[in-house]
Each structure stands twice: as structure tokens, then as C-alpha cells.
């Protein structure tokens, strides 16, 4: 399909905009998308293509879904935009797209749990992980950190779930010990 603006280059982006509840769609090439300020996608690259594959976005050209697109609360990037450039937009993309990032990191790195070595962040963890968390300390620390971040980005729905999960683990421990 040719770009609807320049009518010369191949359209590689389907851009959807909602104005006054009306949906507008345009198939544009990358240059026109840039020039009209409709894209924040810098460029396509091999890594992006590979990441698209890993995320299950195998159909190139990419297109925005017709349903409401979930975007990062920090930078406004959608998951598809991240997949297309192979790079994240900000640190909050990791929490905004947590469900995608976790398996993606596993696929790329063979692992998705960081192993800390330097003492820089150890103190924070010691404060978060008190004595009751000895049995499930790793899980609890991770959940509590995630809760902190989630509250930070005002994702209260996820925060409530995390809080419940933390309570559940802590209660289990109390019951087991009692």
C-alpha cells in the first residue's frame, strides 16, 4: 500500500487518532509520519523486527489496534511502538508493560530475575524485607518493591492486587509459624 500523504513510498504505519470520539486513520510512510508529527518511532531496525517477533507481533507493517491502545504511563509509548524500534521509551515502560517484559527478558536473556552484587541497593532491600519475610523474603521483597513503583505511577488497580498478594503471603507465614 502506498503512503496516503506522499503517494510515493510504501506505507509502513497505520496511524489511528481519536478526535471528538471520531476515529481517523491514515496509512503513512515513516517519513510522512515523522513530518506530520504523528510518530515518535525513530526508525526500524533488525533488533526491533526481532523483538516484534519475540513479542508475537510478527505481522509487519505494524498497525495500531483499533481498540484502545495501552500506553506507558511515563512516556506514552505503546507496546507496538516499543516492539517496532526494539527499545523502551523510559524506565516506567518496564512496569507499564510488566506482563510483556517479564517473558521477553526471559527469552532474550534466558533469565528475568536480576542478581544484585554491589551494595548500592542492598540497604533498601534490608529495610523492605523485615524478619517475617525470611521464608519468602525474595518474593516479598520483589512484591513490595513492585508495589512501591506501582503506587509511584498511580496504577492503583495493580497496587491493590499486589497489596493483597503481600498480605496473603504474610498471613500464611503467621499461620504456619503459629
Amino acid at each position, binding site marked *: 500500500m502506498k503512503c496516503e500523504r506522499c503517494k510515493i513510498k510504501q506505507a509502513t504505519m497505520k496511524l489511528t487518532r481519536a478526535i471528538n470520539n471520531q476515529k481517523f486513520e491514515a496509512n503513512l510512510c515513516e517519513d510522512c509520519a515523522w513530518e506530520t508529527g504523528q510518530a*515518535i518511532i*525513530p526508525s526500524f531496525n533488525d*533488533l526491533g523486527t526481532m*523483538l516484534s517477533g519475540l513479542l508475537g507481533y510478527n505481522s509487519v507493517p505494524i498497525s495500531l489496534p483499533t481498540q484502545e491502545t495501552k500506553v506507558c504511563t*511515563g*512516556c506514552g*509509548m505503546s507496546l507496538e511502538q516499543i516492539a517496532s*524500534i*526494539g*527499545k*523502551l*521509551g*523510559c*524506565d516506567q515502560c*518496564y*512496569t507499564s508493560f510488566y506482563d510483556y*517484559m517479564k517473558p*521477553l*527478558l526471559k527469552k*532474550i*536473556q*534466558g*533469565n*528475568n*530475575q*536480576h*542478581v*544484585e*552484587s*554491589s551494595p*548500592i*541497593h542492598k540497604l*533498601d*532491600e534490608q529495610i523492605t524485607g523485615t524478619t517475617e519475610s525470611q521464608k519468602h523474603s525474595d518474593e516479598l*521483597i*520483589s512484591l513490595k*518493591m*513492585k508495589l512501591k*513503583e506501582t503506587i509511584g505511577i498511580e496504577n492503583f488497580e495493580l497496587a491493590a492486587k499486589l497489596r493483597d498478594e503481600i498480605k496473603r503471603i504474610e498471613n500464611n507465614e503467621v499461620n504456619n509459624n503459629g
Partner: protein
Amino acid sequence: MGNWYIEEGPEQDVVISTRIRLARNLKGYPFPTLNYTDGAEKVLSYVNSALAEYPDDNIKLIRMENIDEIDKEYLLETHIISREMTEKQTPCGIISGDDSIGVMVNEEDHLRIQSILPGLQFEQAYKNCKVFESLPKLKEKYAYNSEFGYLTSCPTNTGTGIRASAMVHLPALTMSGRITQVLEACGKLGIAVRGIYGENSKATGNLYQISNQITLGQTEEDIVENIKNIIIQICSMERTNRNNLKVKGGIKFEDRLCRSIGILSQARTISSDEAMSLISDLMFAIETNIVTGLSSKDLVSMIINIQPASLQKLCGLVLTPKERDVERAKMIRNIIKNIQ
């Protein structure tokens, strides 16, 4: 900065240089991938304000737009900056002071903290990076979570954000064809092998860059230790193969290397690619004592000095490609005359 190659380093008969790089980002600013000018300016200014606590007073941030084209190319040739950095349109810069550290600000990540040292020196290079990384104002701002570690622009760096690499000269493994086995083994161990000028570059002059691919799930120290041990193994294989080739190859082998030295000592014009491959033969001849008169350090300096920007800096002139080939040949002839 960028003068790492003028010093002598351990194991330099095989290992040209060691590099450690830590990728770090600051919380609350968009990653440089998004090319936001405002965000990039704020990062530059914040990072600049953190430098006051660095132990060396000479450390400073230099904005990319204040670096002239030849100096940019020189920093690229000495591996201090990346090609991507030279092409950036948004505010970015480099931090340098002494030769122990070089930091790219707003390249792919907010900070790419690097230390490049001659020869095999992983521990020292890592230590140098950690000194900078631990600056209090930066430390409190790093984008980090306990599950994924340091959060980077590209998920291939997430976790430790560490890349430990060594540039190695492997003429014997290449000549004997054993390099294929080394490459296969490295691949299985999650170790990447590339040409010397980073990603997507072919190996020129039998020089390879060997680095870790995995950055998540292991401690920084373990990653550094693993790659160091692999490099030591490769060094030992390369040396065994050098001896084997010398013994088995006899006069034919000597002749092959000495013919290359012959060209280097007489050429009146030479491209950097041709020079690189002939210098590889010269290095091989020196390291196997077929000829003498130059040290490993002299050879490493020569590899850097014959690159286009370094050559122009040394001559103090802006040269056309043809003029560079002439100057390069002249410089090489001058060095080669010490060979016996």
C-alpha cells in the same frame, strides 16, 4: 582521554585492550531513544552537577556540538564513543578527565560509563567504572528495580547493564581455521564475537572483540570473571597455535609473514584496510620472534595511529583520502625501519 593505547598492558601479545561498560539511566527522564530535546538537556545538566564529587577535578562534560569532526572521528577510532553518538541530533556529550574513564551521556542510555585499558585488565577497568557509577547524586537517581535490575533502553542490556569485552588479535586461530570452533563455543556460552569496530563490523586484521551477551541473572562480578576466564583460554589456544604454525610452517610460514613486512616497509601509498591486514602479519612475526625491534605496545599504537582521524591529528593537517594513504605509508615506513 582516548590515550589508553600508549601504555603497555598485560598479555598484550594477544589482548589489545579491555573494556568495561555500564549502562545506566536516571529515573523520571525519557530514554534518549525518544530523542526528546528537553529531557536530554535536563539529563546533561543533572549529570554535570553530579561530577563535583568525582575524585579527579579534571573531569568535565563536553557537549558533542563543541567537538570538531576530526576529534569525533578520533574518539570513534579509539572506541571512546560510538558511531550512533556522532550522528545524534539531540543534546548529548562525553565526560572525560583522566584516561581511566569515558562516559557517553544520552547515547542509547542516559549514561554509558566506560573504561578502556591496554591489555587484559578487567578488574581495574571494572573498578574505574564503579568509581564513577557510585557518585552519590547519580546513585540515588538510577532507574532500578529489584526484579529486573538496572532498567535500560534496550532489553539486551537490562539487569546489570554491563558489557565486558576484550579486543584480541587471533591470527593463528584464524589462519589454522580453528577460529570457527572458538566462535561456536563462544556462541554456546552466550559470548558474542565481533569485528573490532563494534556491532555489524567485520573482523579487520584478525582483530576480534569478544564480549558477554547476557546481562541479567548473573552478578556483575560473575559476568566479568567469566569473560576474563574465557579470554585467558583463548589466549592460551592462540599461543599454542602460533607455536604450531611456526614449527610446522617453517620457512614457508616465515616467508609469508616477511613478505607482508616487505610491503609495509616499501609501500608509498596504503589504505587503512590493507595496512591493518599487513600489520596483523607483522604482529604475528614479532610475537613469534621471527623479527624483532618493536614491542606489542608499539604495534597497538600503530593500529590506532594509522586510522584516518588519528593520522590527521598526528600530522596536524586535514587530509584527503589519497593524501592520508600517502601519509599512512610514510608513517609505517618510519616505524618499520626499526625492525631487524
